[in-house]
């Protein structure tokens, strides 16, 4: 990932790599026109990248542009052009500028959903990382049955997301679910887990933690194993306590892995559609609805509000891009080249 390195570093790396003719010629004398020179030098790289560029442009670029345009109109199911049999009904929606955005940003719903989405993301990622790191450190010790524990602990990751959602919905079921059955057996009353906003929120976070910890654990375990054992031995000789070793060897040693998995985890959790959609359907009311599921519901239930949903989508994307940029800058300030 050399996206943040300057041109100089990039060139130096290429020269070290040596596989690239282009870098060597970059500082050389310019005989032919710059465009022709570039074409003759880089045409194979461009040709190899071309298929993905074309597909991305057609399948992501065009819909994105169109989505942004829709978000500036008042398109709904009723005004959208469509074809019924042989009759073509033309579109009647109009350009309304930033009206949709103003509506969304001034509505209480948006800030409510944003607050819950932030709580959901922060709680999930913090628990993923904390539990994942704890388990990884335990598994990194010399331990009997280590691979057996490891196998059991990564199993949730092997279950497809929508299947996990259904399993948990059954466990939470207030009448037939095993969680309530256990509570009743213990003499406590059953709880309508998915009927109350607070317990429903706790319930979906718990499921996402169950689903997401294995990935963090395995990634961090890989990071821990790549820290040279000599560092720990040297620290032991110098009399460092376990806490000091953790702070000064483990944490810095895990930094590159951590920065990636936290970013990935944040994006995944922020956009975690299937769990919430399938477990609570956003309910009760819209208490567990995160931004993504809300935008989806806006577009595909009731009178389909295409323009409003597109505006939500644009806002969500902007939030994520800003977050990634801030995150990257924070890392760079700490001296990480990401």
């Amino acid at each position: 990932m050399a996206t943040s390195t300057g041109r100089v570093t990039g060139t130096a790396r290429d020269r070290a790599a040596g596989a690239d003719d282009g870098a060597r010629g970059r500082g050389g004398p310019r005989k032919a026109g710059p465009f022709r020179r570039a074409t003759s030098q880089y045409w194979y790289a461009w040709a190899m990248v071309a298929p993905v560029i074309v597909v991305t442009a057609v399948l992501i670029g065009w819909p994105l542009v169109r989505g942004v345009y829709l978000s500036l109109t008042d398109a709904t199911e009723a005004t959208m052009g469509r074809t019924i049999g042989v009759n073509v009904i033309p579109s009647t929606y109009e350009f309304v500028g930033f009206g949709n955005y103003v509506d969304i940003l001034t509505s209480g719903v948006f800030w409510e959903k944003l607050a819950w989405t932030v709580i959901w993301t922060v709680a999930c990622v913090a628990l993923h990382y904390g539990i994942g790191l704890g388990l990884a450190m335990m598994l990194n010790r010399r331990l009997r049955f280590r691979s057996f524990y490891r196998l059991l602990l990564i199993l949730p990751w092997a279950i497809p997301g929508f299947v996990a959602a259904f399993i948990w919905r059954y466990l939470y079921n207030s009448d037939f679910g095993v969680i309530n059955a256990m509570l009743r057996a213990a003499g406590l009353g059953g709880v309508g887990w998915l009927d109350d906003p607070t317990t429903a929120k706790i319930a979906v976070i718990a499921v996402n933690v169950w689903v997401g910890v294995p990935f963090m654990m395995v990634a961090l375990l890989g990071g821990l194993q790549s820290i040279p054992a000599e560092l720990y031995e040297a620290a032991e000789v110098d009399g460092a306590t376990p806490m000091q070793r953790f702070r000064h060897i483990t944490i810095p040693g895990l930094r590159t892995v951590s920065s990636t998995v936290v970013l990935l985890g944040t994006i995944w959790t922020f956009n975690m559609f299937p769990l919430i959609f399938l477990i609570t359907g956003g309910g009760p009311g819209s208490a567990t609805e995160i931004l993504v599921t809300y935008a989806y519901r806006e577009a595909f239930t009731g009178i389909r509000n295409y323009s409003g949903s597109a505006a939500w989508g644009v806002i969500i994307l902007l939030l994520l891009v800003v977050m990634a940029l801030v995150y990257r800058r924070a890392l760079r300030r700490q001296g990480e080249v990401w």
Partner: protein
Amino acid sequence: MSTATAEPARPRRARGRDDRSVGGSILLHATLIVASVISIFPIVWLVLTSLKPRDGWLSTELKIFDQPSLDNYVRVLTETGFPSWLLNSVIVAGLTTVIGVFLASTTGYAISRFRFPGYRGVMWMLLVTQMFPVAILIVPLYNLMAGLGLLNQIPGLVIAYMTVAVPFCAWMMKGYFDSIPREIDQAGMIDGLTPFGTFWRVILPLARPSIAVTAFYSFMTAWGEVAYASVFMTGEDTRTLAVGLQQFVGQHWSDWGLLTASAVLIALPAAVVFLLVQRHLVAGLTAGATKS
């Protein structure tokens, strides 16, 4: 295991990394056992429920194994649309994977090996497209599919999944190509191969295991996708598994017996393959960052 035998020469010797007291060992194992139980309990319960007789899931008693029967499995396979949903899912996910990996492998190689004008742009594009929330593309894509008459058609869903699969596959493949030493490319070039020849004849065969892992992961992504499938595939015979299963536990009628049995049928093969390749998965996902 005890540190009591501290040498007199080093009186303040700190506790070593792998030394721990008996109590510490018990605590460690106890924590891991609790965590493992939490981790596997839902899966075990799923399997047990699926093996109960027809209305066994209605029972609230905590009987572990009561009159095991394959009734639910028989019903799922003979009385529901499960077989055709399964077929649809396999076709959609299979096509997505093959096309995605095929398109993405050259790009992965190019951004792993060459620094060309536009390199940074491509890297950014791949990264940003992975953040795209479903909400922003789904409406335009839906309208596009409706216009082209591709709603409720398998190709339509495959095209929609390309938006997820292609950037992702390119990213994974780049990580793997980075781990193949560049000296091998150079050897190929010295022997007179063009950059394409090197890629096709030398690198691609070497990358076969990683292609398998990338393919598996994108297969799983398409296999478990809910949002696009729920909107694009509404016809009775074009549903994929993620959509079809929602029928079993609707608002007015639910049969958890059917649901648990089909969940086991879906999860079992996926879990087996997953456990075989999982070591490579993490390496691929984080490779982009750790090997810069």
